[in-house]
């Protein structure tokens, strides 16, 4: 087991290298030049040359990538071309915001999907099932940003500004400087709508999946056996059926993380949150190569680490699955 985890951790390295390298090449091939944007009206050919040299932008793309990599292994993520701030510092400030958003949206998704999926399967073809499956159909068809807009209409505009429509209040301990607002309650108010907007779609997908796998599991012989030996319904559903139905659900939850990162970009943009999503999209649009690299690195890392965690969860759910 320990060997397996170690091997998987080593496998992360080539994947992350590949993703960051491809992103690097793609960003380099974009027409235009960040130096032009940086100098703006003060643009002169000499200044541009000097800046390109200073940032190493005049070298071949592969060399630039290797330089970036060389600095990275020494813990230096480079500095933003446009603001001059260290990329790592920006990433560390913004990461907690996005992590909180993603974790809470996953919690929203599970809170809805687990009961809805189980009830849908157990009370198949009743009004409860139809309600759950119809709601799930609506949920998979509605884009995150439209859920966000509906929430804004309901809670920021409809209910006299019950919840704030934009901005951010940091969780205690994550404040990047002295001037930002910090409070649990304020943070909850700010994160609630984005988390629901991002979580609804995941809830719908997981409900459909969980219902389908519960239906499959309920028909198996070991569930019949459990019934035959007189186990209580609660124990049958939760211990025997649900745990086994969770395996495909966990797989899809892992796959959904890729979508969550993309969804975070959208939701953070809509609610003007200072997270990694807005950091990434701003960096890509401004062609701030160093920031984009930092963003791609974090994204790729999150992606592979979560997939590893998903594989490890299988062993908890089904002890027959073993990794040698």
């Amino acid at each position, binding site marked *: 087991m320990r060997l397996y985890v170690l091997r998987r951790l080593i496998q992360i390295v080539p994947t992350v290298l590949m993703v960051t390298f491809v992103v690097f090449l793609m960003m380099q*091939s974009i027409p235009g030049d960040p130096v032009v944007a940086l100098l703006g009206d003060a643009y002169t050919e000499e200044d541009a040359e000097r800046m390109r040299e200073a940032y190493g932008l005049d070298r071949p793309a592969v060399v630039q990538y290797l330089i970036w990599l060389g600095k990275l292994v020494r813990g230096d993520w480079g500095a933003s071309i446009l603001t001059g701030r260290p990329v790592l510092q920006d990433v560390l400030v913004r990461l907690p915001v996005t992590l909180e958003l993603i974790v809470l949206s996953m919690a929203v998704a599970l809170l809805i999907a687990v009961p809805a999926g189980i009830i849908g399967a157990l009370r198949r073809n009743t009004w409860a099932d139809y309600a759950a499956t119809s709601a799930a159909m609506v949920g998979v*068809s*509605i*884009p995150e940003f*439209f859920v966000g807009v509906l929430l804004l209409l309901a809670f920021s505009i409809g209910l006299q500004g019950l919840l704030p429509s934009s901005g951010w209040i940091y969780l205690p301990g994550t404040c990047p400087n002295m001037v930002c607002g910090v409070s649990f309650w304020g943070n909850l108010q700010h994160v609630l709508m984005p988390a629901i907007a991002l979580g609804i779609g995941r809830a719908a997908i997981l409900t459909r999946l969980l219902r389908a796998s519960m239906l499959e599991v309920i028909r198996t012989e070991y569930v019949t056996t459990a019934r035959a030996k007189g186990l209580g319904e609660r124990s049958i559903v939760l211990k025997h059926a649900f745990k086994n139905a969770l395996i495909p659900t966990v797989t899809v939850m892992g796959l959904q993380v*890729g979508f969550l990162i993309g969804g975070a970009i*959208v939701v953070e943009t809509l609610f003007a949150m200072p997270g990694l999503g807005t950091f990434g999209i701003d960096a890509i649009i401004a062609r701030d190569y160093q920031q984009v690299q930092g963003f*791609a690195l974090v994204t790729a890392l999150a992606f592979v680490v979560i997939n590893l965690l998903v594989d490890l969860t299988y062993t908890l759910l089904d002890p027959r699955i073993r990794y040698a």
Partner: protein
Amino acid sequence: MTHGGESVTGALGEAGLPLEVRAPGLRARTESPVREAIRRLRGSRTAVVGAAIVVALVVVALGADVLAPQSPIASDQSQTFARPSADHPLGTDQLGRDMLSRVIHGSRVSLLVGVSSVILALGIGVPLGLIAGYVGGRVDGLVMRAMDLVLAFPVYLLAIIIMIMFTPTAGLLGTVKVVGAIAIVRIPIYARLVRGSVLSIKEKEFIEACRALGARDPAIVLRHVLPNCLAPIIVTTTLGIATAIIVEATLSFLGLGTQPPTPSWGWDLKANVAFIQANPWLSLFPGLAIFVTVLGFNLFGDGLRDALDPRLK
């Protein structure tokens, strides 16, 4: 299938075998799988509702010039932010453009991108999957590693970077760029799906029989392997259109889709969120349009899956 079944029955009949020797249910099956699927599809309420929505949308998109009361890009500076009225049933936006006309015309970009990007992704992904699955070995490894590389990216990240590379523009060219970006992201899905089906189909006896009869590989792949992986492809395609429409709307929402003045639901929604406080209806209608469109394709795709794959019922 039916034809084969009948001839088998006929042959048995001629041979004068007793009835019990025939495979059970052989005679009862007089319906072709396609007909059976259509019958099931008609019986499925979700599929019928989905199909109705899709057909209505296609009509709206094709007849947008006739159906829209005004030009979607003509701005009337004296009529900015008009509330919904008889003249402007959905009101006007900050440039005084008729919102109903914009929503009607917006259907074009959404449907065009949704359908063409999936066709493009199919056109590249299906052959790749067929070749990888059928040839196997090093070719398989190479193709699938390339697909894994694309899949290693979160979907939106890749689509966003590709759109920046393409530089978003307005009009048809802008739409084509979005189609390309979404297609690239979606290719691996079809390649993997088809490869998986091919791997199991190519081991079947009837393929072996084709080989024994001396059929060439391209003929076997096109006439015998491909038709047998069509069912999952068709279902994934319908649901894929729904996904592509969401991705298009999302790119537009981020300002990276088809550029204005071309009407696009995602862009309109985003542009009007800024005025949501005073004019809440403006971002509501483009959003509803996206939702209903995606719902239509999802309902139809779900019904199609139930119709084509009775095992999943």
